[in-house]
């Protein structure tokens, strides 16, 4: 792997692009949600203003060391995912630090941020944070199940755990995409994506009008700014993960933007149509069809 300073700077530039695209994407999706409700919604530049304001609040309170470290862990989860996902296939600058078994570490980073946030939020002492954390962790465990099964299915199919190899195997036209060669794994993963993006019907972790915003109830100012920064990076990184695994990767930033937008839109589309699940409903839902699809995807390939 290339560890030069130039490589690092290119990756940093990539992170900057991903952060800004994530914020633009989130405001666009909120505008789409507003249009569905018959409103105009927020201006497209609202996330940048919100972030500026959050970073410039005068009062910052802490509840202890872990309260500080929680958002840092969360940010690490998002940035860590970004670091090991090749953004643009075949381009040495934008393939980041992808290596031979990066899929495993991505699965780890997906959970990493949540665990850090759970520790940090619990130190805030808010009962609602604790409820949100327990809901989030139990739901995410069941989200991971179909996702992991789908990834095992891909590993069996392509005989590799490397992103770059999986993307390379999908080149040469839309019929080579995993979407067509392994539709069961794609189905399982796309259903688990609905949960990991945290939109309705699986937004009970942060349900604002039920348990005031859940884990980040006590987070404000810079802490919340860091969490929001991570949210923008994480959304693009997760969408890029699915794009690389199932939809042929991207050979240019333009292709990445189109594909990540459509993948993110899938969760927003479902979210604007369906109301919120309760925790036991959502856990059971993930353990039914998505898990069965995932198991079938492995059995068929054996």
């Amino acid at each position, binding site marked *: 792997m290339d560890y030069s300073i130039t490589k690092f700077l290119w990756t940093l530039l990539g992170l900057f692009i991903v952060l800004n695209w994530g914020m633009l994407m989130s405001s666009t999706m909120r505008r789409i949600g507003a249009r569905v409700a018959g409103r105009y919604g927020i201006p497209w530049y609202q996330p940048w203003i919100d972030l500026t304001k959050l970073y410039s*609040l005068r009062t910052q309170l802490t509840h202890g060391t872990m309260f500080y470290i929680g958002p840092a862990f969360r940010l690490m989860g998002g940035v860590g995912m970004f670091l090991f996902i090749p953004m643009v296939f075949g381009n040495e600058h934008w393939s980041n630090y992808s290596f031979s078994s990066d899929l495993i570490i991505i699965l780890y980073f997906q959970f990493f941020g949540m665990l850090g946030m759970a520790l940090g939020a619990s130190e805030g002492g808010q009962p609602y944070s604790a409820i949100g954390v327990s809901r989030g962790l139990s739901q995410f465990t069941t989200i991971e199940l179909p996702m992991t099964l789908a990834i095992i299915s891909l590993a069996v199919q392509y005989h590799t755990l490397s992103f770059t190899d999986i993307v390379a195997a999908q080149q040469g036209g839309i019929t080579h995409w995993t979407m067509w060669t392994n539709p069961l794994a794609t189905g399982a993963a796309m259903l688990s994506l609905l949960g990991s993006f945290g939109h309705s019907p699986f937004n009970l972790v942060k349900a604002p009008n039920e348990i005031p915003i859940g884990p980040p109830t006590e987070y404000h100012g810079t802490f919340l700014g860091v969490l929001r920064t991570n949210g923008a990076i994480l959304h693009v990184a997760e969408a890029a993960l699915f794009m690389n695994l199932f939809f042929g990767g991207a050979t240019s930033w333009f292709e990445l933007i189109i594909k990540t937008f459509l993948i993110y839109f899938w969760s927003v589309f479902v979210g604007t149509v369906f109301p919120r699940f309760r925790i036991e409903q959502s856990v059971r839902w993930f353990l039914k069809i998505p898990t069965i699809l995932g198991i079938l995807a492995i059995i068929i390939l054996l």
Partner: protein
Amino acid sequence: MNKHKFEDLDVDKFLAPENEKRSVVAPDGSTVEIDPLKDYFCQDRPEVLKPKSAPVEKFLNWARAESLWVLGFGTGCGSIEIPPLVTPRFDMFRYGVQMRPTPRQSNVFIISGYLAVKTLKRVIRTYEQMPSPKYIMALGSCTINGGMYYDSYNTINRLDAYLPVDVYVAGCMPRPEALLAGFAKLKELIKAGKAEKANEYAENFDWYKANQKKIIKDWNMPDYNW
């Protein structure tokens, strides 16, 4: 603002029983002295937080004005005018005004209508938990002079004796359009650097506390809720 005289009050007589000092026997048999107000809460007073240098503060004030996060806490009948703001007819999101469910993440507190003494206590706790810079918008006549409840035995008449108010929206009830106009006025004040009421609260802290404690008889919280 500080024209009233500070009245020295015997604060201890308002202390609720659960906040009195007591000694507790621990499981190992030792006796532990507990002073709830000191042990369970932060006792620091609020400080005046100086703005940054002029050009920086101008930019930050612009960002603060364009990103007003309103706390979803309705105190009186005026809170019925807030839900229409998120509907297609009024759509406050266009102006950068959003609702937040927790005081920690909010900047604007709308006191929507009359304030019962019981609610005032919760309002004070909530206001003090919001991070600075924070703004209060007082909605309806009740917050100005008591309105139709001017002679009620358990509502306050003048809000600005208890908390610093940035913008008043007069009327009974003011329509959602009036609220939007209030937001526009608040933005104007913030951009001009005139919305520094959180600092004013810290400066005149003793006066506000004396007024608050005069009417809240069961004072069972610290002087400032961090």
